[in-house]
Every structure is written in C-alpha cells, then in structure tokens.
C-alpha cells in the first residue's frame, strides 16, 4: 500500500523553525513506522535524522509523536494507523535535528530522584530475601525503558520544564516500594519539592502514552500518598 508520511523536519543549519515535509512510501500493513523512516532515509532523503537501536520496543530510543500520540516507532504498525501518517519529535525537550531531541533534561530529572537502591547495611553473604508479594509490589516500575514518552506527553512538563515528570517519579516509586530500600527520606526531598510530585494534575496523558503499559498515573498517586502518610 501507498502511505503518505509527513515528517516535521528541523535542521539548525538550514531552518529557522521546523517545517513539514511529505514523503510517499510503499509499505506493507505489518511494517513498523520505523520501517517507513528507514525507507525514506535509504531511498529518498539521507539527511533525515532519528534515533533507533533495538527495533522492538525494548531500548526506548525511538519515542516520537505519531499521529498526535507519543509512541515508539518500532512498536507502531502501519495497519493500526492507515495511509496518512504524521511524525514529530516528542514535546518539551529541545529539538536537535528532525526527530532527535536533547535527552539531558530528562535524565537530569531521573538522577534527581536517586534512582538506585539505597541500603547501607552490610549485605548478607547470600541474597537479601524478598517474598514474591514484596517483589510484585514494585513490578510495574521495573518495566520502564526511559523512553520519555510519558514525561513528554505531560502538559505540566510542557509548561514547566523543571517538573520532575512522570518517568522520574516512576523510578522513585520503583525504589520506594522495594522492601530492600532504605532511601525513602532522601528521595522525598526531591519528590516533595516545588518541582516534585505535587505538580502532577492527574491528566492521565502519561498512562496513555506509556508503550510498556505501566499505570503511570496510579504510581504517581501512590508516591503522593507515601509522602502524605509519611508526614502524619
């Protein structure tokens, strides 16, 4: 089938602001949007720039706005979109070229929540024990691939780039609810601050955007509650 692929192009050396460019691409219904981008790059315009690595939804490189929604290009099939497809960079992060954005602000928020197990007790000779139920408690957050789909779909983040954003809060959740972790108070400092979890307006965009089906809004609410109950 013939697909009309519109791409929002931006090259700082050539453009003052982003502009749309349209390509006609021959595609199979089972092709991924990533395949279309490759077809354009290989056959029509070698200057088109986008990130990709694994190509099957695990590495998180190719999050982009596809027909108005944040998705991974490698996990979105043509048959689910039809013959008119538009792709743009994810929103709220500086665009470097075409579909490539600067990820540093995103990873700065990640680092701010101390995304690592905090437990200064000397580890036992064997593993620390954890029941299957304790393990299940934080399972959802461990699926996160740091693709930034959730954070860059959040209207609060668009308005206020200092907001930690859903992905960082999910990372915090993953450790807050890990029975082995002792870093609650340290994380609350960032999470409870002015740009922390209270900025969330429960818009649910993040949950809809997550390509890993993590209930992001729910996890954010659980973090809010953890902070609240900790105070009383």
């Amino acid at each position, binding site marked *: 089938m013939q697909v009309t692929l519109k791409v929002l192009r931006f090259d700082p050396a050539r453009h003052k602001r982003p502009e749309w460019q349209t390509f006609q691409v021959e595609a199979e219904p089972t092709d991924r949007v990533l395949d279309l981008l490759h077809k354009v790059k290989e056959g029509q315009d070698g200057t088109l720039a986008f990130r990709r690595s694994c190509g099957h939804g695990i590495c998180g490189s190719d999050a982009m706005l596809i027909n108005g929604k944040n998705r991974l290009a490698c*996990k979105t099939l043509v048959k689910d979109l039809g013959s008119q497809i538009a792709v743009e960079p994810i929103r709220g992060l500086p665009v470097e070229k075409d579909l490539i954005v600067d990820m540093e602000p995103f990873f700065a928020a990640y680092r701010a929540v101390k995304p690592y*197990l905090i437990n200064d007790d000397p580890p036992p000779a064997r593993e620390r024990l954890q029941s299957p139920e304790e393990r299940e408690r934080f399972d959802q957050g461990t699926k996160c691939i740091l693709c930034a789909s959730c954070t860059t779909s959040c209207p609060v983040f668009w308005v206020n780039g200092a907001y930690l954003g859903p992905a960082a809060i999910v990372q915090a959740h993953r450790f807050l609810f890990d029975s082995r972790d002792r870093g609650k108070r340290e994380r609350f400092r960032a999470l409870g601050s002015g740009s922390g979890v209270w900025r969330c307006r429960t818009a649910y965009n993040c949950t809809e955007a997550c390509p890993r089906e993590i209930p992001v809004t729910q996890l954010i609410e659980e973090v809010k509650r953890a902070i609240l109950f900790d105070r009383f």
Partner: protein
Amino acid sequence: MVIRHGVIVVGAGGAGLATALYAAKEGADVAVVTKLYPTRSHTGAAQGGIGAALGNVEEDHWEWHMFDTVKGGDYLTDQDAAEVFAKEVIEAVLELEHMGLPFDRLPNGRIAQRRFGGHTKDWGKAPVHRAAHAADRTGHMILQTLYQQCVKAGITFYNEFHVTDVILEDGVAKGLVAYELATGELHLFQAKAIVVASGGFGRIYKVTSNAYTLTGDLQAILYRKGLPLEDMEFYQFHPTGLFPLGILLTEGARGEGGILRNALGERFMERYAPTIKDLAPRDLVARAMYLEVREGRGVGPRKDHVLLDLTHLPPEVIEKKLPDITEFSRIYLGVDPLKEPVPVMPTAHYAMGGIPTTLWGEVIRDEKNTVVPGLYAAGEAACVSLHGANRLGTNSLGDLVVFGRRAGIHAARFAKDADFHELKPDHLGESRERIERLKNSTGKEKVAVLRAELQQSMMDHASVFRTGELLAKQVEVLKELMDRYRNVALQDKGEAYNTELVEALELGYLLEVSEALVHSALNRTESRGAHAREDYPERDDANWLKHTLAYKVEDGKVAFRYKPVVLGRFQPQARVY
C-alpha cells in the same frame, strides 16, 4: 582539547557498565564513551536469565555449570575461563541482587531460577533450574541496575560519541578518537587504560535478533590495526527468532515447557536430542530446525519455518513469566501464544568470537598471549574464550558481569601505576580523512544497497550450515562489496546528527568483521558447535582442537595463527544430549 581519564570504557551495555563500575570502585577516574544514550544498549534485549549454580530450586554445583559450559562449547571452551566463570558468576549474581536487581522470587524469598538449554545436573543427565531471572526481561533489569549504580558512583558518560580510532603506538594503547554526533566534532581522548566493551555484530546478517547499532565497530578498528580476531567462524543462531523478523523469543519459553513442532505437529527434537529434547544447546536446535525445513516438514505457505508451541502451558505462566515475548508475538504477528503456536526460525544472535583476551580482560596480540599494555576487552566484543564453539543460553549475561568486573578491576590497577602517554593532535587526521572522503565522495554507491547485499549474501553463504564452495563464493562477494564501498556517497553533508555518515562508517566495520568471519570459516575444515561444515561434517580434534587467530593482511587477504585450547578436568568426548 584532549579529554583525559584514567580508564576509558567504550560501550555502555552490560559489560561496559560493569567494567566502569568496578573500575570506579577500585578508585579509578572512569569515563564511558558510548555511541548511544545509556540504557539503549542491546543487553537490555536479553530476556531469559543469568545462569549461576545458586542451587535455589534444586541441587546444583559450579562444577556442573563448568562442565555444561565446556561441553556446550564443543570443547573449544578454555577450561580455565570456564572454571573462573562458573565460580564467580555465583558471586556476581548475588552482587547484582545487592545492587537492587529485581529478580523474581521463590516463596522462601530466594532468587527464582528456571531451566535453560544445555544446563544440566549430574553431568548431563537431566535439565536443571539454573537461570536466575526477572520475568523475561532479565537483560533489561541488569542494564538498568548497572546504570543506576553508575549514576550513584558519579561516572562520567560521553553519550552519542562514536569511536572512530584507537591509538596504538609501540604496541601500547594510548587513547581514542571519537566523533560527537550532536556537533560533528572529532575529539581526542587520552587514557591510561582503554576497555573495549562495544558488543557484537549481528547486523552482518539479514535475519538477526541484534539491534541496528550492533555493527562490530571496535572489532573492525583493532583488526584493521593489525590485532587478531579469535574464533570468528563461531557465530550463534538462536533457534527461536520470531518469523520472519528475527526478534528474539527467549529460550526460557522452552525452559518453562515450550515445545518446537514441525508441520506434522511432531516434537521433532526427540529425534535429535533424546535426553533433553527442546532444551538442547542452541547450535543443535538451530540445525535441527533447518533440517526439518529442508526435509519438507516446515510450516507455512513456503514451508520455511517451524512452530513454538506454548498453548499447553498454564496461561498464568505465560502471562507472568513470559510477558514480553507474548506481547511481541501479539504485536508483530497478531498471534496469541496462549491460543496458537508461534512461527519461529533461527536468527543471528551472538558472536562467540571476538577480541582475544586473558582471564583479566587484557587484549592479546598473538598465540603466545602477548598482552597489549593498556588495552582491555569484555563482553560480546571479547573472546576469553568462555563460549568456545557455542554459547549456552544465559552465559552471555554471566560473561559480561564476571569478565566486565575483572577487566574493570585490572584496568583500574594498571592505570594506578601508569602514566598518560603523549598524544599528537594529528591522531585526529586518519578519522577526519575517512569522514571527509565519505562526505565529499561523488561515487554512485549507496550504503543501504551495499548493506542489504552484504546481509543477504552472508545469510546465503555463511549462516547455520556452511560449505567450502559457499564460503569461497562469499569471499568473492566481500571483495566486490569492499571495492564498491570505496564509491559510497552520502546525501547528508551536515555536521549535526549526521546519522547517514555514521551508518556509512558502520558499513565499513560490518564488511571487515564479515571478512574475518568468512575467511576463518573457510579455513576451519571440520564441524564444531555453531560451525557446521557440510563438506566436513565431523569434529576433528586431532587437527582443530585449537583457536583461530585471524589477522588482516589487506582487503580480501587474511593470515592465520593458532592458539591451543586450555584443557583441564574435562577431556573432549562425543557431544550427545
């Protein structure tokens, strides 16, 4: 300006991050140079588990793991490496747990373990539960956990820096040149110790489980510089790639009870490995699948694949223990593994061969184990040789933590007592010239066209089964492709994020590692592990119980030297399962 660090690690996958972490723990000033953003590396795609004789589910011993690894490698495994590995991987898994890795748990709170291909108890008598796992995203969890620890340790990362050269002078490693994707600038890096942990090169094949970015960059750069590549003929095809894309479906699916079936519905592995059937090592299963197809028992309109049947498993096992692969088959094929079997075929997966190293990750330059001071390698890019002629499932994740840790510790200690070497700014020249030549070329060849021809021809001539005739044909194909590569031209002449340029550089690397692989395969006139020569179907210990070291002489010409296999407690015997 020259960027200086005591230890510089190339690559931010599991091996690179483990190396960086342990080097930092030794007190070194460590930096990681990676062509991706961290957490994008392909370790994240590893699914099924990390094998270690924890004995959490049933009795197990490191000696059994060592034996399985040696036998699985068809006795080309160096037994000193296998011993160090089988012992230290236990400690490594426990350390990962202490770092916060969310392994699945048993009711008693210990790390859960499942069965995997080639892992047995009592020296091959029956499958054993050895693979510690976190659902079917164990690699993802290892990558995330190691990156988390690197963040905690404050390790410096140079993200999206593409290494174009390693500076070797007077037999010593002195630094690196890297191309910054965001700006198009070339940078000179100075280090006392360099660790290459840049992963594999599955993109030489058309059907592969590997990321687009796995193009053998550093293997090719060192090979060009006159260093050898070891055992390149041994390239693993994973039996269960999602047909026809090649996306990996973990062997853990068979570990949980999944069965391979042909068009007649037969469990055909009963014929090829009567004792452990579908849990035979990967080389055996991949060949069995090809033979079924060849004998007309394949599935589908072209009878060109087989089926992985999970439908008899309890739905909660599939949903809980194999959620990702279930999703892959639903999304990419519209097949629900709960209700119908999944189409699969072998997919290019893992390089057993690579940059030869000692047990501490030191790169060696010859069959006498002469070390290149300051140069290290770990993970899939390296060849210790732990995997021999065929890697067992779960041993790649174990390899990258065990030997990443060793390389990191040794590199840090080496750097402590070493000085920086003087670097001349003209070291940028060779890389700049290569880049300018590509950008200014008026040739007519296209990267994508040459790459597709390479990938198809490697598939046709140098995959699961080989013959002298096919390999010789591929030698000619590669020569022609290398000639045409000189006439590759680019559309993108820009500086910022010139990903077309990067792909052109990567194509050069793909061609060179293919050259090393094909010549090595043509040279080895026997069948062993993943190297199945139809014209030499028997294993030939008298002549070939030795490692290949391939040296580039010029394009299309390769010289060989040989290194004895380190034997030990296990004498080579017939490999039956």
